[in-house]
């Protein structure tokens, strides 16, 4: 459940971030970015202590496994080795975008990212330029991701439904998912929110 929630909230927030900044709501854009930061932090933690399918150790594999999967030699539950590459790529791309945003400011200097105060305006402006350009990388990955899901649909694999309901048919011989503990999820959320609040506050003691 947390994985599904994070996924769809992330998709919605990324869309909202794009819309808000292009419609003169840079203040909402910054809040949206902070919300994304919280989600990323949560998912990172959950990837170590969460449900069996959420854990990075359960689906992140090396190139050998990806090749074996492509030759038809994989069965399991949750993300395939190739899917895992997609998860990592998208996660990193979003993390880079958020990281750049933290230090950005708008063209007029009316809106500062949470950590923009720590650096001089010229650097902040340059970072903003990269933040704007990097979105194209993220968009490319998103298009690839959606394209892949549609492609798999034609191969008979329905991937969207399990991402909503959390239920999918298992290959024979595959163990079902072990749920994560709800109180562990709450702790991860609390830590994620706490770190985000610290960053919003300018990351003391780095700023006075």
């Amino acid at each position, binding site marked *: 459940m947390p994985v599904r929630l994070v996924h769809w909230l992330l998709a919605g927030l990324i869309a909202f971030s794009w819309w808000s900044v292009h419609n003169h709501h840079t203040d909402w854009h910054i809040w949206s970015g902070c919300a994304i930061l919280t989600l990323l932090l949560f998912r990172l933690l959950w990837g170590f202590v969460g449900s069996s399918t959420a854990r990075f150790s359960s689906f992140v594999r090396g190139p050998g496994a990806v090749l074996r999967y492509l030759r038809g030699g994989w069965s399991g539950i949750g993300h395939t080795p190739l899917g895992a590459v997609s998860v990592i790529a998208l996660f990193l791309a979003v993390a880079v975008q958020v990281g750049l945003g933290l230090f950005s*400011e708008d063209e007029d200097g*009316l809106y500062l990212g949470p950590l923009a105060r720590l650096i001089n305006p010229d650097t902040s402006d340059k970072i903003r330029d990269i933040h704007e350009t990097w979105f194209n990388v993220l968009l490319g990955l998103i298009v690839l991701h959606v394209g892949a899901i549609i492609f798999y649909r034609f191969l008979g694999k329905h991937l969207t439904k399990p991402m909503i309901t959390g239920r999918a048919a298992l290959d024979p011989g595959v163990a079902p998912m072990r749920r994560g503990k709800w109180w562990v999820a709450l702790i991860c959320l609390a830590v994620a929110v706490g770190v985000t609040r610290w960053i919003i506050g300018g990351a003391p003691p780095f700023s*006075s």
Partner: protein
Amino acid sequence: MRVALLSVIAIGLIAAAPSRDRALKIMHERHEGMETIGDANKVLRRELAGSSPNLGAVRSSAAGIANLSRKASGWFPKGTGRELGKTGAKPEIWQNWPDFTGKLHNFQGAAKAFDAAAKSGNLNTIKARYADLGGTCKACHDKYRAEMHH
């Protein structure tokens, strides 16, 4: 106050469009002027967000913005839009001239008030007038400035 507003409108309507060379020069001056205002604002934003703002830097930035705001009256003659070159100034400026000049006038008033507040040294007043000033920047830009990619 109304006389000033009416005269700005009158000047805009009556003044003949400048020659091509003069228009390009004005566009360049406008671009540089706006960038200088932006740079001054970025210094201000950081100073006023800190725990002990440097009043000298605040005053110098405030005076600079007030000075440029007065010059801005001459930055938007007819013929200095996209038809001549790359600019963030949208055609809507000249299509809605009274509204645009109203917003320009608000900016000039806010810049003057902020400059006075900076000279007074009262931090609460400075922050309040600064917020007003930012509001006037945004009000005009949201409607009349296009996104520019350098």
